[in-house]
Each structure stands twice: as structure tokens, then as C-alpha cells.
């Protein structure tokens, strides 16, 4: 069993003037390769904060984080950027595509930052768009695409670099339920293909796609349950780890 994400006592503290706010109090969690995890919890419980730290967008105030065997908590900005580029695929609630670039270029972007040659980039980007079913929308700009299509472009961008994990923060939050289902099917497929996926969601029916549900409350892990559903490859072996 290969551990991809290993956090120990992660704390995130925001200081606003005289007030201290612990967004995360002590998160210790381990996620293995090819797991499909849903992170749930009420608004403000720290889901996004945790996702950002796991995705190396943010750094914890204290605690230790190991991603794919590399200790991330000591890395500087540029090293983190490189990790994001190689190891992480992000999918956001608001898609976050570059508005002036077409789908192909949006998907190509991570490869530009990893310094890949043009022909290779185009090949991989086309491939990724094919995987999300957008081969006939490659030259459309985001404003010429539907919400679902935009999210597919975002997913193609997330997986084009063949990352260790795909992180999605409420990926269906801005979509109607039918389109949301289609997007979740896409994640299911990616999981089947061997990807490690972490999805933040409010919705139970979205969480049902995952095989493991981590619930947060007030910056702590409230529960960590393996549902088994959708868990195709590593059934039952993961230890649910409760905070403290």
C-alpha cells in the first residue's frame, strides 16, 4: 500500500488583529494511492483550508506534511510551485480557466510551466481533452462553453500532467445536478484508471461516489469512514485515522 499523502498534526492559524482563528486544529490523515476520498463538513469547518494545504497552495502554521515521500512543509515557494505543477491536479468550484485562452491552451498551460516541447504539449493536451469528451471543443474559449464543459476543461487541465492526486473543491457546486452527475462520472472513470482523487463536497449523493468519507468539524476530523463503495482496488485496507 503506497501512502501518497501523510499529514501529522497540521494546524492552520489565522491571526486577524487580536483575534486568533484556528481553521485547522490538528489534522492527521493518511491517504493511499488510488483512494477516492470525499471531504465533508459544515461551512467553515476547514475543508478548503485542508485542500489548499494538501494541494501545496498553502502552508500549514505547524505540523508535518509528506506528499509522495517528499516532505512538503519545509519547502519554499518555488519548490511548492514545482510540486503543484507535477504532483497536483486542481479542480475548482468556479472552474478558474484563463478567460482569453481557448480550451486547448488552458489544458496546455501546466505543461508550459513544466517546460515541455510544443508538439508534446499539444499531443498530451489533446489527449486529456479527449478523455473528458471535449475533442470537438478544443478551440473554444471559456465563454463559448457551458458550465459543465468548462469544468471538463478544468479536469483535463488537472490530469494533463499525470499528477499523483487530483483535488476537487466542490467541483459540482456551480452546476445543475444532471451536469454534476456527469462530472462525477468523469471522476469515477479517472479513479478506475488508477488516479487518486479527493473531492470536497456538501452533498451526500456526491460523497457516495467516494469510497472513504472524511468529515471535518471546527478544524478537526470528526469521522473518517470507509464506505467501500467505489473502492475498487485497495478494498478495506486503509486505516481510518481519527485526529488525536
Amino acid at each position, binding site marked *: 500500500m503506497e501512502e501518497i499523502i501523510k499529514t501529522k498534526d497540521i494546524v492552520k492559524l489565522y491571526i486577524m488583529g487580536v483575534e486568533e482563528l484556528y481553521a485547522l486544529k490538528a489534522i492527521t490523515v493518511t491517504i493511499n494511492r488510488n483512494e477516492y476520498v470525499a471531504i465533508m463538513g459544515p461551512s467553515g469547518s476547514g475543508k478548503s483550508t485542508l485542500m489548499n494545504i494538501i494541494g501545496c497552495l498553502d502552508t500549514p502554521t505547524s505540523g508535518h506534511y509528506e506528499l509522495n515521500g517528499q516532505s512538503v512543509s519545509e519547502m519554499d515557494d518555488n519548490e511548492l*510551485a514545482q510540486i503543484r505543477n507535477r504532483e497536483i491536479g486542481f479542480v475548482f468550484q468556479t472552474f*478558474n480557466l484563463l478567460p482569453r485562452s481557448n480550451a486547448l491552451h488552458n489544458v496546455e498551460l501546466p505543461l508550459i*510551466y513544466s517546460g515541455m516541447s510544443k508538439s508534446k504539449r499539444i499531443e498530451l493536451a489533446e489527449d486529456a481533452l479527449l478523455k473528458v469528451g471535449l475533442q470537438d471543443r478544443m478551440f473554444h474559449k471559456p465563454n463559448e462553453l457551458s458550465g459543465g464543459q468548462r469544468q471538463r476543461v478544468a479536469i483535463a487541465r488537472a490530469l494533463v500532467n499525470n499528477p499523483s492526486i487530483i483535488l476537487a473543491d466542490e467541483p459540482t457546486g456551480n452546476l445543475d445536478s444532471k451536469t454534476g452527475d456527469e462530472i462525477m462520472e468523469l471522476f469515477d472513470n479517472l479513479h478506475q484508471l488508477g488516479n487518486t482523487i479527493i473531492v470536497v463536497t456538501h452533498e451526500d449523493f456526491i460523497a457516495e461516489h467516494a469510497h472513504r468519507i472524511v468529515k471535518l468539524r471546527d478544524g478537526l476530523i470528526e469521522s473518517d469512514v470507509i464506505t467501500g463503495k467505489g473502492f475498487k482496488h485497495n478494498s478495506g485496507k486503509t486505516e481510518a485515522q481519527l485526529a488525536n
Partner: protein
Amino acid sequence: MKLFTEIKEAVIISLNAIRANKVRSFLATLGIVIGITTVTILQTAIEGINRAFEKSIAAVGADVLYVQKFEWFGKEDWQVYRNRRDIKWNEYEYVLGNLQGAESVCPTVGNVTTVTYQDFSSESIPVFGTTDEYQRTMGLDVAEGRFFTRRESDGGWPVCVIGYDIKDAFFHDINPLGKVIQINGHNFKVIGVYDKMGSMLGLFSLDNRIVVPIKKYFKIFGTRRSLTIHVKAPSVDALDDTKEEVRAVMKRARRIPVGGKDDFGVNQQEAFKQTYESLTGLIKTIGTAITMLSLVVGSIGIANIMFVSVKERTKEIGIRKAIGAKRPTILLQFLIESITICIVGGMVGLFIAFPLSLIIDAFLLPTAMPLWVVVLALFISALAGVFAGFFPAWTASKLDPVDALRYE
């Protein structure tokens, strides 16, 4: 490879950004456009004047000294020079006989007189008398025919070499060689025509004159006019040594004691150059000040829209960082954007300056736009871009990705 890809990407991004904000970009680059237009116009004018100067001063000869009553651009009152002794034939002969370090020596004397050919006549043609050594001393090109020989010179033969404009005015399409003209009523045979030389500093034409043997000149016009003794130094480097010797020899010719004050001038091209350089130096200083001012103002304008641009694209910066853009990459992106805007501004400046310099050339001053001026203008633009873009780009590169992504 990676850097090249990133630069290419950055250039595309910035061109898109400029296209998306045409009016704003245009207004912001106005300062740069004005700056580059000024600097280009200025340089083309200076370059043009330089070239015209070089061309016309060539007729004076960089390695030739002129012993005269007057000093070019002398500091003393004009009266002082006028009251000096005239330079006479015997002094020329003394210099010719005693000067060691000279390549060649010749006298000239001239005045303006009436010249006639058949029924065409002109009253104000400069006529110069000189010896056959004139050709060797001044090295001017005779385009048709030849200069007069030692025999013709010593014998005072009635022959002449005419300037290009004289040929044009008196002979049109007829071959002037062998034709006889009247100078102050005396017959002269035309044996040579000078190549076109242009005008001296745009003031008086060098093509509008006639050169005759000095012996003949004396017979017609007398010997009371003050001469100019031309002394050609062996090289431009030897000019100063030759000058010292000429002064010493002239002093002996005039029996002035060694410590005594010269009552003659030993002139050289340098005198023109100094006056000319102080003039162009002034133009340059004023122009550089204007240019710097407009570039600084321009840079502030660019810096301003770069800050706006960074602010507006905070989310884009967040996205780029989220998918792996490093700080230097973002820095480079915005720096290149600012450089691109400035270079585009610079090109617009060049496009404005080019026809403008042609207009100036036609009506005011000679101008020339060599490649280096274009390169310089673009280089200055790029520099302004770096200058203006660095701080905004730095700010952009330091943005926190989480904050940037949350920005609406």
C-alpha cells in the same frame, strides 16, 4: 528551452492583454511614443547634420593648414584681424622654401568678378588663383578634363578649371572642355570641371567657382590682396607638429621674435569642428533632457497601467500559480508585458518619426535614420519597459496563490 517557452508564452499573453485594452494601452504608451519620437527625430537630425558637415568639411581637408590674416572663429575683435599685415607672395615663397615637414604648399587668392560665355554673363562668380600644387594639396576630384600643369601655372597661361554649377549654368549640355570664357574680360580656356561637392555647411556653394593659375590672376587683378597659404601635413596625426613649424617659419618670414605674438592665423578644420560640436552638443543636451523627461513620464504611465493590470489579473495570477507557475515566471510575464507595451510604443514612435524626419529633411535640416538609431530607440523603449514594469511585476510574483485565487 524552458525559458524560451516561457518568454514566448509571456509575449503572447502580453499581446493579448494589449489587444484587450487597446485604448488604455494606447494612452499609457503616449509618453513612450513621444519620448521615442523625440529621441529619434533628434538623432536623425544630428546624424543628418553630421553627415552634411563631414561631407562639406571634406573640401577643407582634415590634414590641411591655412595660413591667413584671419583666425577662424577667433576670439579677438574683427578689427584686430583686419588691421594685420596682408600675407604676401614673398612670404609664401619663404614658407615653401623653408618648411620641412609639409607634403605640399600652395597659395590661393580670390575675388568675385564677371564671367561671360558667348552671350551669357554673370557678375558674381568667385575666381581663385593658385599654383599647380593646389591639386595635390586639396585632393579635389576633377571629373572631366584635368587640372593645370606646372608649366601652365608658372607661365600664367589663360586656362581654368570650373566648378560643377558653373558648367551647369554656362554650358548646360554642351561639353565645356576647350571652350573659351571671359573672366573680367580676359579669355580663358576651360580645361577641367570639378566633381559636384555640395555646399559648405549649407552656407555657400563650393561648386560655384573658377580656379586659374595665380600668375595670370595677378596680371588681371593685381597683387594687393592677402593670400592664403595652404599647407598639407604628411598625415592628420602630424598636423600639430606641422602647425608648430609653420608658425615658426612664418614668424621668421615676418621677423617676429620667438616669444612674440603671431600676427597671422594658422587655421585648420578643427576650428570648424569645435564650433560645430559645441552647437550640436547644445542640441543634444536639450534633446536628451526632453527625451529623458518624456521617457520618465512615459515610464510612470506604463508602471501605472501595469499595477492596474496586475490588480485586474490577480485571479489569473492565482490560477497560473496554482498550476505551477513559479515566482520568476510570473515576474518575467509581467516584465515582458511591460517591455512589449513599451517596444510597441517605441515602434509607433519610430513610425511617426520616420515621415517627420523626411519632412524636416525637405524643409529644414538634412536628416538621416541609420539602423543604429532604430536599434537605439527600441533599446531605450525596452529599458523603459524594464524600469516601469519591474515593481508591478515584482508585486505580482509575490502574490499568495490562495489569496489571489479568492480575489474577485
